[in-house]
């Protein structure tokens, strides 16, 4: 196979980085080379507002050096992929690794349970990446269409923040010094719209978006426009409410944040650092027995599919919460060793900095109640459709966030509410889940239904 002449292939760059790092004195090394290409177009009030084109590349290197006290490592990244840039990066990272403090438990990139060449071939055939099936004209027309539908939804829509359509693809090559090398591509297309209802001090904005691997898989623009416009309108004339305790239904859009807090707390690194309120919870029942949550790295709808993680470890589907019980922490190779737990293939690798830990596709198994049935079942409470702020303490699980939504009385939505806070503690909130909805909704790489939680505090007037 011949290589394009103007730029080196990503696999070549990754392999070359490993060579250079070894020449510079690294004992063990792994490397990444990435290329992101994308276009996005935004429109407002029927005209094109901005056109953006991105063509980004980058290389990242992690090098370990042997010392008397064990292995020490450092990471470095650059957007300079020239031969001299590669060499400079390799020399820099080895120099830094020599300053870094050795860790007797360090896990060099050797001997991970890599996927086989056959598995790689099958995967790449199934997930070819490349352009998701749009060009800039298609994207522009989709954005214009979606924004027009949202603006014309009704006379209550008074202004627009515009619509945006984007499409792109990225390629990633990973190589480690044990001979594993793989390259894969990902593509995505997305559309979003944001409109405003009302005027003056009674303005409400809302939005809707969808992202998919192929442009042809995107939701109908009519549905996206309808969602954004009707949400903005439904919030008009929102008022406050009285302080008190009650049951809160998180619709899927806000329930995703609960999954986010869970993933943060079961991150093996946070557990090691004692920065998680679930540090001692492994094997314990932390949810009611009707709650099941899985991490699935190969799912037809999820955008978080991956064959291997940021250390080349093969990813496999696993349960996170099984009938209410926490079955595992998420680990990379280092945290698995330190916690004496299985590797879950959860290493997340960016070009810069240390390895992080995260899930692939996280799916909260839906229940049998429609959202309507959930309202009926709880009778009185609050449906939360918006959360703002960062009021979650990861160490204690203490939770206090700004919220907006709808007051529920006698099983019916009676009026929009804003300017309140909801508070509790995540441990108690998880245990106090009363109902899980049937309305499973995907947001990129998480899928979650509506969730009802009792005994939360609402602060208002």
């Amino acid at each position, binding site marked *: 196979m011949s290589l394009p002449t103007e730029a080196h292939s990503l696999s070549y760059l990754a392999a070359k980085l490993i060579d250079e790092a070894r020449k510079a004195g690294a004992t063990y090394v792994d490397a990444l080379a990435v290329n992101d290409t994308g276009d996005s177009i935004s429109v*407002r009030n029927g005209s*094109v507002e*901005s*056109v*953006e*084109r*991105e*063509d*980004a*590349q*980058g290389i990242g290197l992690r090098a370990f050096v042997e010392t008397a006290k064990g292995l*020490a*490592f*450092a*990471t*470095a990244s*650059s*957007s*300079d992929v020239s031969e001299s840039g590669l060499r400079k990066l390799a020399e820099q990272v080895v120099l*830094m690794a020599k*300053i*870094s*403090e*050795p*860790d007797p438990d360090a896990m060099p990139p050797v001997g991970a349970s890599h996927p086989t060449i056959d598995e790689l071939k099958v995967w790449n055939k199934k997930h070819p990446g490349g352009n998701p099936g749009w060009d800039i004209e298609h994207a522009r027309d989709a954005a214009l269409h979606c924004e027009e539908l949202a603006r014309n939804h009704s006379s209550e829509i008074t202004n627009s*923040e515009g619509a945006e359509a984007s499409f792109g693809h990225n390629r990633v090559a990973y190589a480690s010094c044990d001979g594993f090398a793989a390259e894969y591509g990902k593509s995505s297309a997305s559309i979003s719209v944001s409109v*405003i209802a009302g005027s*003056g001090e009674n*303005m409400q*904005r809302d939005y809707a978006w969808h992202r998919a691997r192929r442009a042809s898989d995107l939701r109908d623009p009519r549905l996206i426009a309808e969602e954004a416009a009707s949400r903005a309108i439904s*919030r008009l004339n929102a008022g*406050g409410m009285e*302080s*008190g305790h009650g049951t809160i239904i998180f619709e899927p859009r806000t329930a995703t944040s609960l999954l986010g807090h869970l993933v943060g707390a079961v991150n093996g690194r946070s557990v090691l*650092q*004692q*920065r998680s309120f679930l540090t001692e919870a492994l094997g314990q029942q932390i949810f009611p027995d009707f709650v099941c949550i899985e991490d699935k790295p190969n799912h037809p709808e999820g955008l978080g599919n991956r064959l291997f993680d940021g250390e080349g470890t093969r990813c496999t589907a696993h349960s996170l919460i099984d009938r209410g019980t926490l079955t595992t922490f998420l680990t990379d190779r280092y945290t698995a060793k330190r916690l004496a737990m299985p590797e879950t293939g959860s290493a997340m690798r960016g070009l*810069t*900095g*240390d390895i992080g830990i995260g899930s692939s596709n996280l799916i909260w198994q839906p229940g049998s109640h429609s959202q309507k049935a959930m309202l009926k079942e709880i009778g009185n409470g609050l449906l939360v459709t918006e959360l*703002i*702020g*960062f*009021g979650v*303490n990861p160490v*204690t699980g*203490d939770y*206090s*966030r*700004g919220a907006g939504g709808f007051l529920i009385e006698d099983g019916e939505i009676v009026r929009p509410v*804003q*300017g*309140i*806070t909801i*508070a509790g503690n995540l441990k108690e909130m998880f245990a106090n889940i009363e109902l899980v909805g049937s309305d499973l909704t995907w947001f990129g790489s998480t899928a979650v239904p509506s969730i009802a939680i009792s005994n939360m*505090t*609402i*602060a*208002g*007037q």
Partner: protein
Amino acid sequence: MSNQTLDPASDSLPVSIETLQSVLSQMLPADADDGDLYIEHSTAESLALEEGRVKHVSASTHQGMGARVIKGEASGHAFTDRFDTAALMEAGKSARAIAQSNQYRAPVAIHQDRSSPALYQNVNPSEGVDFLKRKTLLEELDALARSLDPRVKQVFANVSSSFSDIHIIRMDGGHLHDARPLVRLNISVVVEQNGMRETGSAGGGGRFSLSRLTEGDEAKRLVREAVRLAILNLDAHEAPAGTFPVVLGPGWPGILLHEAIGHGLEGDFNRKGTSVFSDKMGKQVAARGITVVDDGTINERRGSLTIDDEGTPSNRTVLIEDGMLTGYLMDRQNARLMGMKPTGNGRRESYAHPVLPRMTNTFMLAGKDNPADIVASLDRGIYAANFGGGQVDITSGKFVFTTSEAYYVENGKIQYPVKGATLIGLGHEVLQKVSMIGNDLELDPGVGTCGKGGQSVPVGVGLPTLRIDELIVGGTET
């Protein structure tokens, strides 16, 4: 301060002037309102300590060029991180995509524009402070934290520095240069008592040399602060839920202004009429006596800029004067469209991001009240001495920010610390409920990062002690 009084360092430009000249002449349509090339070379280094060891050492280098063409409300933007002529020309052509005209603008000669005096040194902040010095610093801070209290179980310390060298070539050929140092030190501890854990953190930094952190006492002060906050929170009671008078402490609580006021006054939202402040220019939006400024011209502050990312010298913009709304924050495009002047607030995270109107250092001027009297004025309320992060919805005006150090006060006396609670209010109402303004204006220690449109930029905030008569406190005690 800088002893460099020479012209912008053209020697740091990684591309020849001739090449840039060709990119510009192939990029700009005859009817463009504006356009520029933004060439950046940035390096960043970070050392992090955990479990007593500095075992996370990382570095990154980013370089590239952003090309921009503006016509009316439309803008075309493209970037590349390759400096070869073909890639640069391609970026210019992509940025031209919004052009209506097939004609090209007549070429202009690129010439150096003398920018305002530098507010920080054109020196990489890590120069003279090698990795070993930084590592030693972190190890000393770890030891200090553990020596302060036996309940300290975990210490995380991170020292980072970056240096961004940027060149802006404007449509008129003006060539501006800025070199921006930035350093930051963060300390975070986990403490444990009777099986209960809590955390506390503190940080500081600015646009100065790392030696300021390795040599002075500031780093040690931050460690003491992080340990103090963590221990304090061990004994914190549940915060109350409901509407209370709240006294904000000086300094970082100025995040109130950033969220409640600042974002709503950014030019883009106001041009589009999507901010709750859109029609309020000249109207009273705060109690009399309140003056709020955005000031990017303070030496070596984290949010300061010698020039913004469009080459406009940064400014001191009065946003609210004696309670009246007097100013918006402007980049060039929004200023042109609104018939106003750019205020030096056009910022971008990097060459790979579009320019947006953003804040620099946003703070309220001091008043006359004695801070102790302000706290003592609370019959039954919350004294919030410090905060974590915040967020705003500029359309409805709702904003939140979350306490990291707060106390329940009764009869003017502090009773006990309370757990972190989110406070919520409306941006166009909250400052009308201010009844006392302290004489103790403080700027934050240099920790702010503002997110907008997916872009992060360093900012500063500041506040004197302030009494707000009514704010919703999101605790759990009713």
